[in-house]
């Protein structure tokens, strides 16, 4: 089946490399393992490469981070700056800040490395987000991939923490302002807040311990965890094999794509250089975190435009628009305006993300394995939920940069705040509703395509003067793709006598689940049955026969490669979509071996 088999079996003269490989194989027995991995099949779609952006920018982070750590001094000891940057020379500052200035101005390529590191950090987390969105909206998190979804969620959290630790390292005004806010968040914890803050900072904020501590977290602890989890993530991916879009020849039991060697490896390896190149270009051409302009951290200073990096923007936005609520109970002040947006909300969002697959599986009652992706339109509620979450996120994001928006667009800061306070409750449901309706109308159009064919753009005039557009049946491939959907079953709570002896609480849960399930599938367009399809085809043939009778001269007009005039579909062999390689899935189909 594999088109590249020729290359693989070509007898090669024993070269030096071959000899070395042989040497290694005879001692480690790796060849057997490698052969299997080399034949590993990966399906091909641009959205499957989004996770790779994250992977490769992590590699860029490792490389540039090691470079930075050669010169960076994680110390808050006070020194007098004597480097090349004139406008700060002679100032007292921490060693951390001074060494960051040295990296920027006195280390060859240091500024490039710093900027690449920071841009790669922004890309790393952004790529995890878009990757997560892809996995979510295609239902790739469904059984058996829930664990990988959980790992992904934890990776996202760790990436954000890692980024925050890095952002704090230069010890400039922005770093310090960020730490100050973090300190505020910790201190807002009722009763134990102050102790926790003292524990974290080794005394009163800012102290002189936090930078060395964050440094260890930044270069050792979190990267180690990230590396381990990324490893687990990839191993699960290889073990479970990649999901694929439905289509002719692609089933829940196989994977159609390219083998690891040489095609997929070339593509992925090439993509590394693309991501590396993009970060290098950004690092070379666009300024990021110009620490020399912020000056050393000084608790008495603050600057307009003090924002965290974008991935903390949501928390910042929530903090900015939250009304200043506070209550005092028994002498303990609970600062709700910090506790809710700063502590409770992020945890809610995180648990929501982590547990989503289980919530959805509970509603749908779906326990089967899924290796075929679901088109976003075929799961309207999931897609709509994503639309709502993205709207919510985007609004809070904008709220986090409210001052910049006000300056750029001549807006009133207070008006932005009032608007956001209402909008985060109104717009996400609106987005949900719109996206849901949109998905369902797309389902309708799919159904129409299946049953009535596609619109040819050919306008027919009947003998009595009426106009109509000619529809022609879609190709067999397309029809197959559209039909590759799961049958949906609404969960029904058992009724009446079945419930005797079941605890009332359980009954209520069952009823809730049944309601949720009804809403989940309720408005979906059922996929047509075999009878419907056959009837539709008979109808189409009849129709076309009549029409062709009237429009003899135009018979080419509608036969644009999809129909040869009589409405019968030649089932073309997939010459143009010939799969390069197919692999079976042993997990669902133990009989079929991998090819």
């Amino acid at each position, binding site marked *: 089946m594999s088109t590249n088999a020729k290359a693989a079996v070509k007898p090669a003269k024993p070269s030096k490399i071959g000899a070395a490989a042989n040497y290694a194989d005879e001692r480690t027995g790796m060849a057997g393992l490698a052969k299997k991995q080399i034949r590993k099949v990966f399906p*091909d*779609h*641009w959205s*499957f490469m989004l996770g790779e952006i994250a992977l490769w920018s992590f590699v860029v982070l490792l490389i540039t981070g090691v470079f930075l750590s050669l010169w960076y001094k994680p110390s808050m000891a006070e020194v007098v700056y*004597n480097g090349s940057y*004139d*406008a700060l*020379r*002679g100032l007292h500052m921490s060693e951390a800040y001074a060494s960051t200035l040295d990296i920027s101005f006195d280390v060859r390529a240091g*500024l490039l490395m710093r900027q690449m590191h920071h*841009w790669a950090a*922004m*890309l790393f987390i*952004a*790529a995890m987000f878009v990757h997560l969105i892809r996995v979510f909206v295609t239902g790739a998190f469904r059984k058996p991939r829930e664990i990988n979804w959980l790992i992904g969620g934890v990776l996202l959290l760790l990436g954000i923490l890692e980024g925050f630790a890095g952002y704090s390292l230069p010890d400039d*005004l*922005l770093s310090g302002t960020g730490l100050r806010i973090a300190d505020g968040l910790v201190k807002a914890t009722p009763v134990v807040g102050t102790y926790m803050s003292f524990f974290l900072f080794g005394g009163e904020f800012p102290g002189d311990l936090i930078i060395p501590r964050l440094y260890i977290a930044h270069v050792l602890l979190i990267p180690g965890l990230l590396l381990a989890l990324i490893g687990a993530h990839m191993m699960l991916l290889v073990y479970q094999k990649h999901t694929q*879009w439905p*289509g002719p020849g692609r089933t829940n039991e196989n994977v159609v794509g390219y083998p690891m060697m040489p*095609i997929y490896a070339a*593509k992925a390896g*090439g993509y590394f250089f*693309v991501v590396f190149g*993009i970060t290098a270009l*950004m690092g070379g051409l*666009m*300024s*990021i*975190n*110009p620490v020399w*302009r*912020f*000056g050393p951290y000084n608790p008495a*200073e*603050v*600057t*307009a*435009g*003090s*924002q965290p*990096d*974008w*991935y903390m*923007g949501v928390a910042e936005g929530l903090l900015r628009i939250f009304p200043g609520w506070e209550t005092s109970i028994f002498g303990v002040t609970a600062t709700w305006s910090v506790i809710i947006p700063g502590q409770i909300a992020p945890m809610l969002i995180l648990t929501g993300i982590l547990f989503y697959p289980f919530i959805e599986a509970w509603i749908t009652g779906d326990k089967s394995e899924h290796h075929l992706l679901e088109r976003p339109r075929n799961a309207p509620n999931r897609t709509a939920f994503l639309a709502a979450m993205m709207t919510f996120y985007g609004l809070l994001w904008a709220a986090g*940069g409210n*001052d*910049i928006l*006000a*300056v750029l667009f001549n*807006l*009133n*800061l*207070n*008006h932005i705040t009032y608007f956001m306070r209402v909008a985060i409750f109104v717009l996400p449901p609106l987005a949900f509703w719109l996206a849901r309706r949109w998905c369902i109308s797309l389902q309708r159009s799919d159904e129409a395509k299946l049953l009535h064919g596609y619109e040819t753009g050919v306008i027919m005039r009947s003998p009595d003067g009426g106009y109509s557009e000619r529809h022609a049946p879609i190709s067999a*491939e397309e029809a197959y*793709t559209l039909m590759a959907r799961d049958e949906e079953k609404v969960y029904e709570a058992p009724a009446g006598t079945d419930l005797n002896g079941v605890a009332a609480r359980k009954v209520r849960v069952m009823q809730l689940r049944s309601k949720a399930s009804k809403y989940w599938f309720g408005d979906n367009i059922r996929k047509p049955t075999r009878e419907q399809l056959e009837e539709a085809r008979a109808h189409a043939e009849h129709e076309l026969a009549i029409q062709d009778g009237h429009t003899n001269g135009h018979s080419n007009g509608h036969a644009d490669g999809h129909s040869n005039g009589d409405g019968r579909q030649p089932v073309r062999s997939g010459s*143009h*979509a*010939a799969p*390069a390689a197919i692999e079976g899935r042993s997990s669902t189909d133990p009989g079929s071996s991998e090819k």
Partner: protein
Amino acid sequence: MRLLTARLSARRRSRFAGPVVLMFALLLTGGLYTALSPASADDATSSDTDTVAKGRELFLVGCSTCHGKNGEGVDSTTGWYGPPLVGVGAASVDFQVGTGRMPLAAPGPQGADRRHVYTDEEVEALAAFVASLGPGPVVPSEEEYSPDAIPEDEREEAIVRGGEFFRTNCTACHNFAASGGALPGGKYAPTLQGVEPKHVYEAMLTGPQQMPVFSDEVLKPEEKRQIIAYLRNLEESPAYGGAQLGSYGPVSEGMAAWVFGIGACVAFAVWIASHTARSTRKGAKA
């Protein structure tokens, strides 16, 4: 070499060096000024009365509708109102009219419209007239505000100190790169890039709108000049890191990461995935 100057500058910062150098500089510039200044004291008063008269005329035409005939202010409920100008001083007029804020074009949260209606002489006349209404801050002389008046060998240190003053007193509203920031109620602190040194000085002296007054007790005249020197350094120093993205900090950086970074990565992903090893790509779908 650098170490040497650094050590020298450290010594210069000894307790007496500063004041002594400053005294010399002031004496020198002051002496030069009196010697070279075109108008003598007597001339000044006689030409002053002329200027005040001219300024009064201009004021009656251009400003009295809002500020009253004698600068007493006009209070009204419709919003067409100007505050009293008695005692605001020539510096305030020079700033407001010189930067094009006054005459105010339309009521609004803030006069930003930079219409330059008056010539330099007319501004001077208006300032003289308002100054005659009551004593207030005078228009600063060039050596008070111009960073060029700082002796060459002290300039670097002045810039460093100016940076410290700027970060402590101004960045909260005007942003770390002086690119401006928003204030509550639709007001904003404008960018300081491209503002003339004289107007920067006058702004500190008079505190327009939301901006606090930085009197000479709060920021000594030479400290104001140091801030101006820092601002000029900020404008003139090269963009070390590359494109500045508006100098708005992490918000514009995040925007760039998504638009250029993720945008480019996704574009390449689409490109790579669409270049398959298939014989023809027709019909390659999802």
